[in-house]
């Protein structure tokens, strides 16, 4: 019930905000903030303990609810949370609070409807992270798109309509392919067993021919690759990120992209282990291409927001690389990378939003020398840029490092190329700081330094990153059973390389060593 409660609180909060917002804009803001705070409290007080310290009797899903929905078609309202879900739920609510905080003053008109859309996107994302019925999953998958579309169309920047429609078409078309694949899987399973159901646990381990498996896997893969975004289908992302309002960019980069990564982890590999193994080399090549191409394009941007957007393509490439390596260390790294990228990129978008609010431009070539005016803003920007380039001591380093170590034994050449992406990351990250905050002031800007609200928002994000960089063990502990059970799903895994055979044995002590080294 708690899981339904989490979603309902956000949906109800959204409705309330929309109603109050027509006459009292401030009430809408406070409603949104209260709904998210309540949700975070619920998640910390009930969901996290239930999952982190499950009762002995609990199966793979410590927290689960199943209500028949459309039983005549085999559809159930099946929500469940394991360690992976709960970590992502907390990330969603935390970034949700940050996005409400950063829109506090930016959204001046139609505030009620804005917070309605924001809360409904977040509710859809929570649904995606907890749905265990494939139909329900698709339902939430689509549900989070519509409010996001409105966020971009109504509160975006100059070219918002083009960007919003492009975003919607890409993700929707890919989503429909996934729907076709979901229905295909439903019939493959139904014909084999006589049980027609969309229930995820039942569908695991469905037997199918190699060709069918590959076709269905590709249907899922395309949907998640567009969302991730992976290399050739990333073209919607720079536009959508650039044109979205700050909160929209934070939610897009911090959360929507993560639903793609979550889909790969939860569905693509466990449901189609054989097809995924066959496809892994191609996917890894795409991932590395994304890492390098994203970094290259990021470096050549002058629009600050676009620059940050392209870094996402690069960073999320690491996640895809790790998923298709599918060993424990890489997956742990992928999870940390998902969280830390959400926090650091979200924070960078918040900073860009603050700069735009003050200067009404995002053009990097018009900035410069801002440090004198706003040292605290500059300091935070410096910190998040360093996180983005993978400085040890901040969370992103842990993620990328574990991914590279995990992937190396399976694909040494690709790992080496991916590591080059880290070098590129340091170039563009330092470039941001150097161009915007140091050097000559190219124009006579008079800008205000951080207000208390802004400093608090950025400070919380920074603290979280620092914590994950220094002591990520709680996240590992929470997610380990979930990741292990993903890897043990029927018919799943062993990748061809010997490393996974011994991976379970070495990873524990090995990872501990890594973390000690980081400390």
């Amino acid at each position, binding site marked *: 019930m708690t899981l339904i409660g989490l979603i309902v609180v956000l949906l109800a909060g959204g409705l309330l905000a929309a109603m109050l917002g027509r006459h009292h804009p401030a009430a809408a803001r406070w409603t949104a903030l209260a709904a998210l705070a309540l949700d975070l409290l619920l998640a910390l007080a009930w969901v996290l303990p239930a999952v982190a310290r499950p009762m002995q009797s609990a199966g793979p899903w410590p927290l689960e609810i199943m209500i*028949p*929905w*459309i*039983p*005549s*078609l085999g559809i159930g309202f099946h929500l469940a949370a394991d360690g992976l879900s709960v970590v992502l739920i907390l990330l969603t609510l935390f970034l949700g609070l940050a996005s409400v905080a950063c829109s506090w003053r930016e959204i001046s008109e139609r505030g009620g409807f804005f917070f309605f859309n924001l809360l409904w996107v977040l509710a859809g994302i929570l649904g995606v992270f907890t749905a265990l019925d494939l*139909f329900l999953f698709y*339902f*939430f998958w*689509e*549900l989070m*798109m*519509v409010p996001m*579309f*409105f966020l971009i*169309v*109504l509160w975006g920047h100059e070219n918002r*309509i083009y960007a*919003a*429609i492009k975003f*919607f*078409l890409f993700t*929707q*078309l890919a989503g*429909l*392919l996934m*729907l*076709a694949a979901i*229905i*295909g899987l*439903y*019939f493959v399973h139904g014909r084999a067993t006589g049980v027609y159901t969309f229930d995820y646990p039942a569908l695991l381990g469905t037997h199918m021919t190699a060709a069918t498996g590959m076709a269905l896997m590709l249907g899922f893969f395309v949907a998640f690759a567009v969302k991730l975004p992976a290399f050739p289908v990333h073209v919607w992302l720079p536009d959508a990120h650039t044109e979205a309002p700050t909160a929209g960019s934070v939610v897009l980069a911090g959360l929507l992209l993560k639903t793609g990564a979550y889909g790969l982890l939860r569905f693509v590999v466990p449901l189609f282990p054989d097809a995924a193994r066959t496809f892994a080399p191609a996917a890894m090549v795409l991932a590395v291409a994304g890492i390098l191409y994203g970094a290259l394009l990021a470096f050549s941007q002058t629009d600050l927001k676009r620059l940050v957007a392209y870094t996402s393509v690069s960073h999320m490439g690491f996640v895809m690389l790790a998923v298709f390596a599918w060993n424990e260390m890489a997956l742990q790294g992928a999870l940390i990378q998902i969280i830390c990228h959400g926090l650091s990129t979200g924070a960078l978008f918040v900073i860009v939003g603050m700069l735009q609010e003050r200067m009404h431009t995002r053009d990097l070539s018009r900035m410069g020398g801002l440090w004198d005016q706003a040292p605290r803003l500059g300091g935070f920007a410096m910190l998040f840029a360093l996180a983005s380039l993978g400085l040890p001591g901040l969370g992103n380093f842990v993620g990328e490092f574990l991914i590279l170590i995990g992937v190396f034994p399976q694909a040494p050449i690709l790992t080496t190329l991916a590591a080059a992406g880290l070098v590129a990351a340091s170039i563009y990250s330092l470039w941001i700081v150097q161009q915007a905050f140091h050097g000559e002031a190219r124009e006579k800007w008079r800008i205000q330094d951080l207000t208390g609200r802004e400093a608090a928002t950025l400070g919380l994000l920074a603290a979280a990153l620092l914590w994950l960089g220094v002591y990520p063990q709680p996240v590992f502990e929470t997610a380990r059973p979930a990741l292990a059970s993903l890897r043990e799903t029927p018919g799943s895994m062993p990748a061809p390389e010997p490393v996974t055979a011994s991976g379970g044995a070495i990873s524990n002590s090995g990872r501990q060593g890594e973390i000690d080294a980081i400390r």
Partner: protein
Amino acid sequence: MQYADYMALLPLMVLSAACAAVMLLIAARRHHGLTVLLTLTGLAASLAVFPVALRHTPIQVTALLTVDAYSLFFFVLILLATAATALLGHAYFHAWGGHREEFYLLLLIASLGACVLAMSRHFAAFFIGLEILSIALYALIAYPRRRSASVEAGLKYLVLAAGSAGFLLFGMALIYAEQGTLDFSALTGGLSHSGPPSLVLIAGLALVMVGVGFKLALVPFHMWTADVYQGAPAPVTAFIATVSKSAMVALLARLLAPLDLHAAPGLFNALAALAAASMVGGNLLALRQQSVKRLLAFSSIAHLGYVLVAMLAAGPAFVPAVMFYMTAYTISQLGAFGVIAVRSTQAAEADSLDTYHGLFYEHPWLAAVLTAMLLSLAGIPLTAGFIGKFYVITAGAQGRLWWLVITLVVTSGIGLFYYLRVVVALFSPAPAGQTLPTNASPAAFSGAVVLSVTTCLLVWLGCTPEFLVRLLQRAAP
């Protein structure tokens, strides 16, 4: 005819009596509101006796008609859609001068024809129903007879419908020549005999499909659609889009359900090509329309293409999927055209996309209703259209029509674009100095009833479709 036959036909007889009553009322006293009231009473009476008919189903009444749960489902759908159209007509014609009362008479007659179509199991009944429906429609389309666009649309529909009826009759003649009977059930035998079916039979069926394709506006028989949708008064457009198509779909599904189309691969491929062409053509043609009515016209072509995909998948899911889709489609179209009807005045139809800019800020509820309807047509969750599209894809996948399913998926992705264009227009700021005309008469109440009921149904079916799905699985023949 037995007692049971009369009982089964009771709803149809009450509907005919309502036609006569409305005609007599108009002869006695012209009064707009009273006519609407009597029309609605007639429809309600017909719906009220439908449980009596249901108790005697399934039953074949004469050689022509069959009354079963399936036809009664479409009967109810048609009558409810007609009632909604009548209410929209009340809102639409309220402020008009001239004779408005015959509109409702024609509406009742057209719905009678549609009901006959939905119940027919014989080519003669098919033709009778079709003509009752079409002839009433000619007059309905051209009802605002001082408006040249409407008269042109009516004439266009008349000429093309008459032409397609010619094809239909010729096809029936060929089928009769081959089978010696006009009963639908004889076709099953004709197609399932060992050996390839005779060429004459195939030709006959193909010609019948031309007639049906015209009525459903499948590509390449869609030429009339956009002009007629645009020229007809908005409530009539809603009627054409919903009642006329539902009735024809009901008939086509009954015709195709028992047939083994794989015995006639030529026919099957032709129908598949028709479906694919409608999906691609409808969606592409709608992309750049500046008129909302034309846009919905082209989109309806695509929707009927989706339905045809489900029909070609001969499997247990086929009939319920078609019925669910038509229900969702009817609700969404009634709502969408309802918004147009409510916003139209005698001087101008609210047709151009420009007149929809900024509607959200002046009339938030109207804009919200139209958004919900468009999202349903686009197949977005929380709306009935989403479940409908899911059901149709399921039926297609069950029949292993993978190419058609992929075409459906890709073209409906394209279709999103134009639905979003309208939605974006609703929410973008209105051009300075423009006031949005909206029919704010007391009759707007009847429009509001239609819009709120359709919206509630849309969301209700989108959230809890189990009830209807179960009902349809039982009602399928």
